């Protein structure tokens, strides 16, 4: 279990440093597989129930096959290959990742004084994934990378829940999974629409609606 958590954390680091969108999608798909395996390890060998099995299979099917397929299609449709000039460079992103990892470790250390936590490494990985998901959402320009960031964030929440041992019934877990899946599916569909309407996937050029950035928008229009 600690091995999987470590792999999850490493995949996040690689995501933060990767400029190729296809590699990023694959990395998130890989996270999906790891995440699918995690419930089986939590249950412990020999005690794997039907519920854990269903959850694990659904997870792998949705997060590492179906969604990456959709996102890859969207990627090829748009013709974009690379994340161009994120607000924070890739090297700095990895450095920030290290800081975020340290912060996650510190938070978990603090939490341990108030409650017994079965697996602190997994919890650290969970927090780290939440932070890096948020980091990707804030610093990247492409709508596709934002979708990936959201997926990483969700994966992090899932991992956190698993390591805290807060188990709901399998129906609730499946419902949560379904919601997340439909959400990302919708985002994927919207990627196609964004590409068709704007001919690009750059979210930072979304500024027609802001109350504060009216000047920027009108300047840009004048420029075009």
């Amino acid at each position, binding site marked *: 279990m600690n091995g999987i958590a470590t792999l999850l954390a490493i995949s996040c680091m690689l995501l933060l440093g990767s400029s190729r969108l296809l590699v990023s999608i694959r990395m998130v798909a890989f996270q999906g597989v790891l995440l699918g395996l995690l419930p089986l390890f939590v249950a412990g060998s020999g005690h794997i129930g039907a519920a854990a099995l269903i959850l694990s299979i659904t997870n792998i099917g949705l997060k590492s096959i179906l969604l990456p397929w*959709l996102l890859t*299609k*969207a990627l090829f449709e748009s013709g974009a290959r690379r994340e161009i000039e994120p607000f924070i460079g890739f090297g700095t992103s990895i450095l920030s990742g290290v800081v975020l990892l340290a912060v996650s470790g510190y938070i978990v250390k603090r939490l341990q004084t*108030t*409650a017994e936590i079965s697996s602190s490494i997994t919890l650290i990985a969970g927090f780290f994934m*939440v932070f890096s998901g*948020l980091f990707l*959402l804030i610093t990247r320009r492409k*709508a596709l990378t*934002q979708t990936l960031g*959201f997926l990483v*964030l*969700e994966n992090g*929440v899932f991992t*956190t*829940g698993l390591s*805290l041992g*807060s188990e*709901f019934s399998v129906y*609730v877990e499946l*419902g*949560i999974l*379904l*919601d*997340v899946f*439909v*959400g990302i599916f*919708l*985002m*994927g*569909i*919207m990627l*196609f*629409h*964004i590409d068709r*309407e*704007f001919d690009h996937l750059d*979210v930072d050029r*979304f500024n*027609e*609606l802001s*109350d504060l950035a009216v000047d920027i928008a009108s300047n840009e229009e004048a420029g075009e």
Partner: protein
Amino acid sequence: MITAYALIILPVITGVISLFISSERVRRNLLIIVAFIHLFMSILLCNGSAGELNGIWIGLDALSRLFLVITSLLFTGSATYSMVYLDKHPHFNGPAIAGLRMPGNSNAIFAACMQLFLSAMSLAILSTHFGLQWIGIEATTLASTPLIYYHRNRRSLEAAWKYMIICSVGIALALMGVFFLAMATSSHVHQFTPAGLSLFSGYLKVEWLKVAFIFFLVGYGTKMGLAPMHTWLPDAHSEAPSPVSAMLSGALLNCAFLGILRIYQVCVAVPGAAVFANELLIIFGLLSLAVSGIFILHQPDYKRMLAYSSVEHMGILALGVGLGGSAIAAAMLHAAGHSLVKASLFLLSGNVLAVYASKKVEDVKALLKAMPLTGALWLAGFFAITGTPPFTTFNSEFAIVRVALQSGSWKVATLYLLFLLLVFIGMLTIFMHMCFGKKGEQEVDGTAGESFWQILPPVVFLTTALLLGLYLPDFVRNTIDGAALLLGGKAL
């Protein structure tokens, strides 16, 4: 019990069916019929004398009664209104995406998503289990995103994307909160519901409960439109079709608020957590009031003005609950009043938009002359939304000030009144300009925007808000008091 499940499941079934109905008329009639059946069943359920329905998954208490009836009523109004609205807007055939052809055209998707949206909101309101409620609230985001993108243009796409990303992230944080709340419980708790947790409040770990409350407040607060997480709200509410804006503002924000109220219900039972929760609610409430006050002044877009007014009223709700005592009951009454008034204003803004073809305040002049009915209602809506007597919103806003003064929170009361004044001035200039003002050069034919079905829902909603202000019937009072008691407050 069956009725409660039917309220959630029926719209899903009919929603999926309407994707595959090719006849425009049949589809619209189905939407209307479902709306009225839903309203009828909700009233039946809330009127039921079978005692409190209190399951592990689905339940009904005073809080859910209140919000269920409001939601169902608003949906019926919006569905009725959308019949005419859909006629006036062109629809598109479903695009082929990733090689898959989507069934139906954009109107079919509209009808389907409206019904799925209703189902998701019913689930969010009726669920007692915290996990199930999360599923319901997240599902509302999913069902409403295609509705916001109904017009299929750049602006609506941008709004829908922002809505989707910001709300999904917020709700993901709320899920963290649900996990933390599970950590706060002990093995004594058998039901992961507000009632189940309050019953064993002595065994709850206060620190974890506080952390969970922060995550709930930030997470669901994003969806509710509390500042500073409100950034998606003006965009989504102004770009969505008017009947959808009415639903988003009047019903959806309430559902998210209910998410916060459910954990508040647990916090009330734990002394240390209650004070903490109240402080946070007051801070977020005042901040929302401040932000809306600032952005409403000189707002060039009247639908955005209405959206910022929603931020303001969500701030009032949070503030009312945070102040405690009878302010909680006042906040519940205010939730009902705001929903009715704001929904009618958004529907009326659809009438104006259809005739003037502009969302800019400066383009709309002499509304009272061009569209007498809409203009008069628009003006009445202004008085109602700013809390002028004799509308019910005045009673609730006044009750909140009274509690603030009685409890000695002078600072809170002063700031509250100051921000209300700011909003009043901002809205006054906009409404005066729109209703009176000099007539522009081009003649506007207002009759197009005033068909019977476009006027009826706002008339019904505003009349209800007026009557509730004059006289509070016993069943309304009992529901509101019951809801306040659940949240540790006093009767109105």
